[in-house]
């Protein structure tokens, strides 16, 4: 992010950045940065809180009038852990069962995903161009040894991940996003499929599949599950 500040400002476009990782910004030294302590992925802090987001964006924009850069300003507001008022346990039984299949699990979530789309008016699924049964079939085929290109597999997996998490957000008692992410890894055949697939990708002769397996399939925070899988 900070690199773009240098590139654009050198071409005559004044810039102000939000910084999520202060140590990175201290190294890159872009012209102007506002350091925020929010979770990675949420640079404006809190979803569906326009007032909070507007304050963050305004504080960033106001840095534009300063010419004493490189500067890092510390944003004074912080976001606490997402409040959890639920006794969340997965409200529909998605726990892997011997007789269940990934295709059946994907199908079962469709009605919940429809609920999510109806409520938010949007979905972030749709990078791969595949419908979810087809994305699931591609993942199942990869597990059976029929590996597509890394890019095709990555796009299908990321769409499925978005589909599962959006569907879970529409459950009657959706819990926190942290719990829904844990659910994906703890309780779904999809999470299990990714963990099963990882060693095969890591052992592939295709360097792009190895990158996928080693870096962009399983989040760093979930890699401890690989030893168990």
């Amino acid at each position: 992010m900070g690199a773009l500040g240098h590139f654009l400002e050198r071409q005559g476009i004044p810039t102000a950045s939000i910084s999520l990782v202060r140590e990175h910004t201290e190294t890159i030294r872009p012209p102007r940065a506002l350091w925020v302590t929010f979770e990675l992925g949420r640079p404006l802090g809190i979803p569906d809180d326009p007032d909070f987001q507007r304050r963050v964006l305004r504080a960033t924009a106001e840095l534009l009038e300063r010419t004493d850069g490189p500067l890092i300003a510390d944003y004074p507001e912080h976001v606490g852990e997402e409040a959890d008022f639920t006794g969340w346990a997965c409200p529909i039984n998605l726990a892997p069962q011997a007789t269940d299949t990934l295709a059946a699990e994907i199908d079962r979530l469709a009605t919940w995903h429809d609920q999510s789309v109806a409520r938010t008016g949007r979905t972030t699924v749709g990078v791969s161009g595949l419908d979810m049964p087809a994305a699931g079939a591609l993942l199942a085929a990869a597990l059976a040894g029929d590996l597509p290109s890394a890019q095709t597999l990555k796009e299908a997996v990321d769409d499925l991940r978005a589909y599962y998490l959006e569907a879970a957000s529409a459950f009657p008692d959706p819990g926190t996003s942290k719990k829904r992410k844990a659910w994906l890894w703890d309780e779904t055949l999809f999470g299990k499929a990714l963990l099963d697939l990882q060693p095969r990708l890591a052992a592939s002769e295709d360097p792009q599949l190895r990158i996928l397996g080693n870096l962009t399939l399983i989040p760093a925070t979930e890699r401890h599950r690989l030893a168990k899988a």
Partner: protein
Amino acid sequence: MVRRLSEMPEVEAHHLRRIECPTFDDTPALPGKPLSQRRVALISTAGLHRRGDRPFRPGDGSYRVIPAETPARDLVMSHISVNFDRTGFQQDHNVAFPIDRLRELVEEGVVGSMASMHYSFMGAFPPDAAEPHAQHLAGLLKQDAVDAALLVPV
């Protein structure tokens, strides 16, 4: 709340420490008009684009165009990294791409106006791969009479 790397869970801090950050000679911060007279563009590095536009790929330093009037339902994210939260963006695109907030700041008179086009890179780019695209983009921003860019990471 995420503070310094030293205060983070080690597995996350370790991942972030491993990211190699480029260094640059200091770039002077340019003077400009008051904020209330500036035309502002948003530039995200969240790997955002319209559904149907080319997804980002590893090492991709190029950008995608997001017209100001793009409906939220058309926005998708193809960042290659899995090490950041996406549920916030799934719930509310503004938490990563604050286009509605920028519009409100313009309505309030805090910001002069907003650009007709906004942009997204995919932040995992090697700087050398992005620099020519960024230089080209600077020329397009000037054509759109943009005189400030807000850079939003993910």
